[in-house]
């Protein structure tokens, strides 16, 4: 991890980042003053401290922002431990797929670090939830995801698609802080990239076509209709269904801003805009209550005691 590169990257998103760190000169003074003590191991903590100062967490964050980011943080732990367990389960992931799953696992860890950095002492728990906080069979309702790669990718898809909907649903509550909103959007689109790849793996790779009569097992790279309820409808149907109110329709929705996007669109020559295509073109947000209801399926007794997804 290159600290200067990271700050340079942040500068592209937030040109005032140096001002937030007091002044450019002082940033470099601080960093050089730390000298050899700055290592890959200490860098995340150091970054956290700097981000906290820069974006003024704690008392400056609204309750709304804290709640939204904390739900996101808990979802990231759910995902991180999932992929991490998968990678540590010998023989589970085909060797050709290990680099991709490693990228996903590492991205989730990056998201955890970024969210914790912003939340600081207001993170939902002072300690990282461990693997023991989660039950990835949803109390036995799902097949063991660590038994074979088909199960593993299926439940993984449900997690990332839940994450995409959760970040989308949370975005409006972050509007008062532009830097945090942008960071959340930058996480949101990465979750969608993950989903696209897991879906590709599930249907059999780059040379495979989805089965539109069995989107549960062989999905497209994007959500089509409600995807027949997802990998295991008994548990995953809410991932693609409607949220808690009328503002959070199911993924099959084709009405956007009062416009029917199926009937009002002109297809490329020789093609037809189907309801499926109209639903695929827009992903739908999910409200916090609906997200938590899905996620609570995956907390163990330990997780429940810790208050995960309450």
């Amino acid at each position: 991890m290159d600290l200067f590169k990271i700050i340079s990257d942040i500068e592209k998103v937030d040109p005032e980042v140096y001002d937030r760190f007091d002044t450019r000169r002082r940033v470099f003074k601080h960093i050089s003053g730390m000298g050899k003590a700055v290592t890959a191991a200490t860098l995340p903590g150091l970054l956290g401290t700097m981000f906290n100062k820069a974006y003024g967490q704690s008392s400056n964050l609204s309750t709304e922002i804290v709640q939204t980011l904390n739900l996101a943080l808990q979802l990231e732990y759910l995902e991180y431990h999932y992929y991490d367990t998968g990678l540590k389960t010998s023989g589970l992931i085909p060797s050709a797929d290990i680099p991709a799953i490693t990228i996903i696992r590492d991205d989730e860890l990056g998201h955890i670090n970024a969210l914790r950095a912003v939340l600081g002492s207001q993170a939902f728990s002072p300690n990282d939830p461990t693997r023991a906080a989660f039950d990835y069979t949803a109390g036995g309702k799902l097949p063991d995801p660590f038994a074979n790669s088909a199960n593993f990718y299926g439940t993984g898809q449900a997690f990332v698609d839940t994450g995409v909907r959760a970040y989308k649903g949370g975005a409006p509550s972050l509007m008062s802080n532009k830097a945090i909103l942008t960071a959340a959007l930058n996480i949101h689109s990465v979750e969608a990239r993950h989903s696209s790849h897991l879906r590709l793996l599930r249907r059999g790779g780059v040379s495979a076509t989805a089965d539109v009569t069995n989107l549960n097992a062989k999905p497209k790279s994007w959500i089509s209709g409600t995807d027949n309820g997802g990998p295991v409808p008994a548990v995953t149907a809410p991932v693609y269904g409607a949220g808690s109110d009328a503002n959070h329709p199911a993924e099959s929705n084709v009405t956007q801003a009062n416009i029917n996007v199926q009937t009002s669109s002109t297809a490329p020559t020789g093609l037809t805009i189907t309801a499926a295509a109209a639903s695929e073109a827009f992903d739908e947000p999910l409200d916090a209550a609906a997200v938590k209801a899905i996620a609570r399926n995956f907390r163990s007794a330990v997780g429940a005691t810790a208050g995960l997804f309450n």
Partner: protein
Amino acid sequence: MSNIIKPGEDEAGFTKPLYAPIKRRSFFMYAGATAGVTALALAGCNDDSDNNSPSTPGMVDLGSGDVGVLNYAYALEQLEAAFYAQVIATPYANMTADEKTYLTAIAKHEAIHRDFFKKAIDTAAAGKTIPGLTPDFSKINFTDRNSVLTTARTFEDLGVSAYNGAGKLIKDTNYLLIAGKIVSVEARHAAYIRDLISNGSFAADDIVDANGLDKANDVATVLTAAQPFIKETISGANVGK
């Protein structure tokens, strides 16, 4: 001069080239007809040009505030829709059946996005919708898989970074949600296209940083990247302001 464009004027005429497959010969006609005009337009372009009242030939001003953001998205979606319409009208050599299936699906998604924005802006701010833009795909070899897919990757990653960067400019919550609904679909496209080019590059280091964050680009950066593919000169100086 035939290239004078005002918002809301001659919509059908200017959008037509984008809806229909564009023949190679047509590209050259466009290129020849507009080369001189573009030079003039650039010479007459100033930074403080007023929003929504483009009087300079060949210039399109996206406007200000949320309408500017919507026009910005509309411009990018027009570009993507026109590109994919051409991709499926003239498939590259050895396009596989499943590639055709999914590139066709993406073509539909982008057409839906384009038409949604036009209608949404017409409804929210009648008369402020930018006209249909004229694509310039002269540097793309539509018969070559690599040329098509690398251009698709550029457009999709650019689109993701544009929506991510525009989020903070949006004032109306509903528009922020709409942008969020679309950007994740663009990210799904981007990941698929990247995997077609090199399987496993869906979230590679060149696009997702060490903290697992995607890019967010500002309007000027995105328009600079998009401009070579659009005949008209796009001004986004007041988008979100």
